[in-house]
């Protein structure tokens, strides 16, 4: 064994978080968790096109696995918390870096998405809170139907609730706006996280960038299709 001193791992991990690269690592790791959720959630939502039967059964299936459901919820909540906290600390540090601004400043190649990460984030978070109150707990109302006890366990009305909710143009508009911001957030975040943890390659990084762009737009198209479909098929209220 070498005799070189090695810092204990816990202390090292903490030291890493002190410097911005450690916080970026947390941003990237939690970002991956959130992207995976965004994909899974979209796949669940797209079942709306298979009709009420399919979608409500899927909801009942998820709720029949309380262990799994709560694990997912806790992991997600932890990821969101760590993502927000790290970004807050990073934002605080960089805000100090230029106390006196420019009279005139030009942003040359910076994409709109890359410069707006810090406010697209909080707006998306605020929307998610509304979204959960609307379609998970039903606190927003809007004709929310809570689950009822049926002959084969609880019956869920996910399909009806989504349809009822999205028939309000204001709800749909808020949803589409939040998804648009999410798209921008992913547009920059999904390649940026690789760069931040030190993964860069002359050939694959441009490819990764395009992939992130295509992917974020595909996700947006999938999500936005739902309120549009509801409003066209069932009419607005």
């Amino acid at each position, binding site marked *: 064994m070498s005799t*070189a*001193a*090695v*810092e204990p*791992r816990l*202390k*090292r991990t*903490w*030291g*890493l*978080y*002190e*410097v*911005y*690269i*450690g916080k*970026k*690592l947390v941003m990237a790791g939690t970002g991956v968790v959130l992207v995976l959720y965004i994909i899974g959630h979209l796949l669940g939502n797209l079942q709306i096109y298979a009709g009420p039967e399919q979608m409500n059964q899927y909801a009942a299936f998820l709720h029949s696995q309380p262990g799994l459901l709560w694990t997912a919820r806790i992991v997600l909540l932890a990821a969101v918390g760590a993502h927000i906290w790290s970004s807050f600390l*990073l934002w605080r*540090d*960089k805000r*100090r*870096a*230029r*106390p*006196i*601004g*420019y*009279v*005139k*400043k*030009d*942003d*040359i*190649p*910076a*994409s709109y998405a*890359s*410069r707006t*990460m810090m406010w697209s984030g909080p707006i998306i978070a605020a929307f998610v809170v509304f979204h959960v109150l609307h379609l998970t707990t039903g606190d927003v109302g809007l004709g929310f139907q809570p689950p009822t006890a049926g002959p084969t366990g609880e019956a869920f009305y996910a399909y009806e609730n989504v349809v009822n909710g999205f028939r309000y143009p204001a709800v749909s508009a808020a949803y589409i706006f939040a998804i648009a911001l999410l798209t921008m957030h992913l547009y*920059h975040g999904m*390649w*940026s996280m*690789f*760069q*931040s*943890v*030190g*993964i*860069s390659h*002359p050939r694959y*990084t441009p490819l990764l960038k395009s992939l992130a762009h295509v992917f974020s737009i595909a996700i947006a198209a999938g999500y936005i299709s739902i309120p549009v479909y509801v409003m066209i098929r069932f009419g607005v209220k």
Partner: protein
Amino acid sequence: MNLILHVWRQKNAKDPGRMVRYEARNISAHMSFLEMLDVVNEELIARGEEPIAFDHDCREGICGMCGFMINGVAHGPERGTTVCQLHMRHFKDGDELYIEPWRSRAFPVIKDLVVDRSAFDRIIAAGGYISVRTGSAPDANAIPVPKENAELAMDAAACIACGACVAQCPNGSAALFTGAKIAHLGLLPQGQPERDRRAVAMVVQMTKEGFGHCTNIGECEAVCPKEIKLDVIARMHRDYLHAAWTGRQKPGFREDQPAEEPMAGNRR
């Protein structure tokens, strides 16, 4: 050609400073931007006013002394150019130009367009070197270096430490500069023994100096007169994480090894 200039004038570090309007008359298209300022200054001196102070030395684009913002772009509108190599033919008669110093907490203004960039020196002092025995120079080709690495190291070594990357970055980050130095030495065999130590020490010093952190926006890359690529920042992060992972270096702030004059640039 005639131009209208709005120049940041600030007597000393304590003075709050302000923008002052000047007219630059009879400017030749063949002059460099600094020569244009020389003409303005001669007129100011003739009128008994204080000339505009700006940093410069080689005027060949190689020393890294010059640099300021022209209409919100570091080193002006031409890509891959320092202000000393920027020619007036890129401007039109009647143009209105805003000229400001680099803005960063770590680069306090000393006078007019001159800023104190000693924060960069302290980042270099923290680890931007290799420890070798001087005196007997080894044979030039004694250590083989792969061609690609030699090229990449050379590209990174082109950084002239002008500070444009910091000035342009919306976060005031010095990641491109520090990354260039870490990539340059980390790509060569001579840089290997101190690679972990270097990455940690330089990143920590950069953070301590009060620079912001990189959010991969890419404005630095666009204004860098030496066209250093964002890739060097990924290399820096990779080296840093490697050092943290192997644990030979404590990755956080090092109480045991205080950097020389930490934040001295900010005390002024």
